[in-house]
C-alpha cells in the first residue's frame, strides 16, 4: 500500500482569519495547542472528528483544510 500524505492549509486559514492564534483554534476545537502545532507541521494526522471541527471553525468544507496525496 503506498504511503499516503495528508497536507493542510491551517496556517493559511488562520492567517486569513486575522492571524487567529494556535491557542485560540485549539480552545475552539477542544484540543491542546501542541496538537494544533503537530497537525500544522504534518507530524500528526487528526481524527475525522477533529478534522471536521477544525474545518467548522474556519467555516469551510473539510477538503479545503486537508488534502490527501498518494
Amino acid at each position: 500500500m503506498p504511503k499516503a500524505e495528508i497536507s493542510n492549509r491551517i496556517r493559511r486559514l488562520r492567517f486569513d482569519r486575522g492571524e487567529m492564534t494556535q491557542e485560540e483554534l485549539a480552545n475552539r476545537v477542544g484540543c491542546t495547542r501542541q496538537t494544533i502545532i503537530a497537525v500544522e507541521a504534518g507530524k500528526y494526522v487528526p481524527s475525522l472528528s477533529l478534522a471536521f471541527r477544525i474545518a467548522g471553525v474556519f467555516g469551510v468544507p473539510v477538503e479545503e483544510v486537508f488534502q490527501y496525496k498518494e
Partner: protein
Amino acid sequence: MTPLQKRAWLGLGVGVGMSLAILAVFIARGVTSFDDDLVLRAIAYVLCVGGLLVYGVTLRIKRRKPGRSEVLIDERDKEIVRKATMAQLWAVLLSLFIWAIALTEVYWGQKSIPIVFVYLIAISGLIVSILAQAIGILIGYRRMR
C-alpha cells in the same frame, strides 16, 4: 509542554530516583544480607511502596493555569499513551524473561534461587514499568512534534 509530557518527566524522575535509592541501599548494606537484615528489607519496602504511591499521585495531578480553560488531554495524547503502554508491556515482559533466563542459568546447579530475587524482580518490574511508560510518552511526543 503538555500536561502529559510533564507527567512523563515526573515519572522518569520517580523511576530514576527509585532505582538509584534502592541501588544505594543494597550497595550500602549488601545484597547478601537481605535475608538477615530487617532494616534493609524495611527500607526496600518503603522505597517501593513510596515510589509507587508518588507515581500514583502524579497520575492524578491535573494542573490548570489560572484563568485558562484549555483542554489538558486530547486525542493525540491518548494515542501517545496507548503506544507507550504497549512499549511498557513489552519492556516489563522482556525484563521478566531476562531475570528468568539469568537466574535459571546462574542457579541451575543449586536447584533453588535465593529469596532476595523475588523482591528484586518485583522492584525491577515496577521500575521498568514506570521508566518504559515515561520514555515511551516522551519519544511519542518527539516523533509527533
